[in-house]
Each structure stands twice: as C-alpha cells, then as structure tokens.
C-alpha cells in the first residue's frame, strides 16, 4: 500500500547567475512499513527529496502524496507532526535532553512528561534527562535527536545520513537501534545514506539518485546483485563521478 508517492516532482534552484535543476521529474512510491534507502553521489538531490515530503521546501512542479492525499491539502503543521526528520549532524536545541525531547509537547501547549520513556526507547539512561546536550557524545546526541523526532509519534521517519557524522562503533549501535525501532513502531522510513554497505543491511528497497534523476529503484537484493542501468553499475563499482551541470 502506497504510503508516500512522488509524481513527476521537479525542483529548480535559481541564484544570481546560476539555475540548477536539483530534481528532474522524479516519480517514486514508498510502501507502508518499508525501509527505503536512497543512495547517490553528493549533490544528487537526496536531502532535497526528503525535505519536500514535510514541505520544508516546495517543489517547482509535480505532486507528493501521503496516504494518497496530496500533501498540499494537509495543514502543514499537522503534516510535519506525522513525519519525523533526523539530520546528518545532531541538530539539538540549547538546553537539556529533557527540554529537547519535550519540545513538540511544549509547542503544542501540552504538559506531559514523557521524555524518560523516549530516552529509554533510544537506549539512553534516564540519568541524562537533565544533562546539557552539549555535554553528550556525538552518538548520544544523535539518539536524543531521534528520541525528539519519535516523541511526535510520527508515521514516517526521514533519516538524512543519520550515522555519517559518527565513528564506526556509534554508527553500528545507532543503525541497529533504528532498525529495531522501525520494526517495533511500524514506521515507514526513508534513509539517505552514502554508505553502500549500510543500504544493503537496512533497506527493503534501494534507489539510486544521480543528478536529480532516479536511475535505479529495486528491492535491495536485486539492486545490488542485478543492477540494470550502466550508471548504477558504475556507482556500485565506485567509479561514478559526480556530474555537475
């Protein structure tokens, strides 16, 4: 069942002396409960693709659907609460762990103390609740960012290279945590990564995005074992250079 669908979505970015087509008529479907990994060289438009779903940015043309409803017809605040986003760097607000996790509740004027529950969910000790986030390690900060996103009880989780700023051990731990949580909570996940091995491990389906175009979009084993497109073959062989405009 389609959870998220892009229908010929394009994005053109203009600055003073340059116009760039960041996304070119992208059409995709992500099914409910799927972990959908997105691979591609830097500048291919992967992060942009995520930011379009929760309307942090607006496409130049095309439509996006959540549960077959055009996202423009859903009030934007409500849309964003149904979709969690974790950035590459842990982007936490100044203050304590608790204040970060309870941020969504606070802005809705609700007063429930469930930070401890989400902290446990991401494998951190509730002792850390009152700690200033700046004192945490990178791995801990990213877990807090994840807990903060989950506190909205979203249906969809957008992960923009969530482990790329972490060391190997923290990466493995966070990856395992996310995979486990996703299954437990029944989330639909879009996972942008530049790590081919990570995509192999976590993805139900994998897509290759190059220069704003979908090159290959297959179930993960087929993507890696039987790529159809030459660009995909080159990419997997590590031979693909980023083609600029």
């Amino acid at each position, binding site marked *: 069942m389609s959870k998220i669908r892009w229908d010929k979505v394009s994005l053109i*970015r203009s600055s003073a002396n340059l116009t760039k087509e960041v996304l070119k008529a992208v059409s995709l479907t992500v099914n409910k409960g799927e972990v959908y990994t997105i691979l591609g060289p830097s500048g291919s438009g992967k992060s942009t693709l995520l930011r379009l779903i929760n309307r942090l940015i*607006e496409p130049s043309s095309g439509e996006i659907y959540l549960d077959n409803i055009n996202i423009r017809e859903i009030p*934007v*605040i*409500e849309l964003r609460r149904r979709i969690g986003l974790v950035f590459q760097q842990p*982007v936490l*607000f100044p203050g304590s762990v608790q204040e970060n996790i309870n941020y969504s509740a606070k*802005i809705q004027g609700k007063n429930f103390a469930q930070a401890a529950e989400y902290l446990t969910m991401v494998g951190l000790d509730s002792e850390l609740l009152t700690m200033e986030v700046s004192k945490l390690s990178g791995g801990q900060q990213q877990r807090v960012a994840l807990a903060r996103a989950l506190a*909205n009880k979203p249906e969809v989780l957008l992960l923009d290279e969530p482990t790329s700023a972490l060391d190997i051990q923290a990466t493995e731990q966070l990856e395992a945590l996310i995979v486990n949580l996703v299954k437990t909570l029944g989330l639909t996940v879009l996972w942008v990564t530049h790590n081919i091995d990570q995509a192999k491990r976590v993805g139900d389906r994998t897509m290759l995005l190059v220069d704003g175009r979908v090159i290959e979009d297959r179930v993960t084993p087929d993507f890696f074992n039987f790529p159809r497109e030459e660009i995909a073959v080159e990419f997997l062989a590590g031979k693909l250079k980023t083609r600029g405009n």
Partner: protein
Amino acid sequence: MSFSALLLSLTLVLISIVISAYQKLGLEKDIITGTVRAVIQLLAMGFVLKFVFHVSDWRLTIAMLTVMILVAGQNASKRAQGMPGAFAAVITAIGGGSLVTITIMVILGIITFNPWQVIPIGGMIIGNSMVGAGVVLNRLTAEIKQKRLEIEAALALGATSRQAADGVLRAAVKAGMIPTVDSMKTLGIVQLPGMMTGLILAGADPLQAVRYQILVAFMLSATVSITCVIVGLLAYRRFFSEYHQLLDL
C-alpha cells in the same frame, strides 16, 4: 556665541587635520567633508527649527517628525543586509514607539505638544530607536543564517515560524535593547548627557536640568524597547513563507 567666535573655533578642526597629515593617516579629506557637511546640515536645521517654532503649527511639527522617522528608517534598514521589507518594518516600529511615548507624556502633562518641546525630544527618541532597530535587524539576519538548521529542526517538529524563530528573535531584540539599558547605568558618571549639558549651558539650575535628563532616560528606555520588539516581530516574518518554510535569502 558670536559668529566670529564660532569661526575661530575652526582652529579645533585644523588641529585634527594637522594630526592626520603629520601621522599620515589620510583622513584630511574626510575631516574637511565631515566638517562642511556638519556645518551646513546644522545651520539648515537651525533655520528650519526657527521657522517651525515661529509658525507653531501642529501639522508642521508632525511633518517634521515624519521626515525624521523616514530618514531614520532609511538609515536603520541599511543594516538589514538586503532583507525585503526592512524599511517598512523599521518606520512602523520607530513611528509606533515614538508615538506611544510622546502620547503618554503629553497625556500625563509631562510635556506639552508644542514644537520646541516635541521636536527636540522626538529627535532624541527617534535617533536612539533608529540605532536599536538597526542592531535588531543586523543581528536577526545574522542569527537566522547561523542557526538555519536549528530553525529547520524546529519547523520539522511542527513548530510555526514564530515558534521556530523564537530563540533568534529574543537574541536580536535583546541585542537592540542592551546599549540603551547599559547606558542608563553610567548616566551622570561617565558623561554628562546632551540634554543636561545644553540646559546647563543655557543657564538652567542643574537640579532642574537633571530632572529633564532623567525623563529622557526613561523615555529612551520605553521607546527603544517598543521599537526593538515591533521591528523584530515584523522583520522575522520576511524570512518565512506562508507555509512556515524558511526561505533562501
């Protein structure tokens, strides 16, 4: 002061020109330009004020204050680094702040609405509000650029643009107000402020002059606070779309 005495005081300007030449600072041209502009502008203002005070028409008084607000707005909006709508935000804020303060003082009978009170007082509060507004705009633009990801993180959690901008707005408004608040702490210690100096030079009793200066300090505190808050609340919206998206500027 006689005109010939004022001419003789040009020797003071000569001193700064000589220092610049001797030290090879290259400022001689700027000093001369600055001196000429200051003299012409102040003389022109003197004639205008004399006329306005003589005519004593409330419409002319308001027109003068309006011109001052527009010029102040032009000056302050330059600090906004190309932010759209900065000028409109600043003149609304400075106009609003000045209007509230002057109205309160007229209603309370602290001053009367005549040109020789309202224009000098208006000038002071508009000038200080201009500086405050400029600082708010400059700081807001810089903070939004620097904290872009944090603001996006807040928006992504379902914050409105007002909620997401809360931190940067507070920092900007605070930055605008701090100079005025700080200067109140050193009033009378570090320097004798302008209003007091003018009154004493004109022969007023220092204790009377001091009362007026205290009044000015309170007025500035109120007006600058109002201006900074209004300009902040108007300006931050320019950075967001109607769908609570942070725009590329």
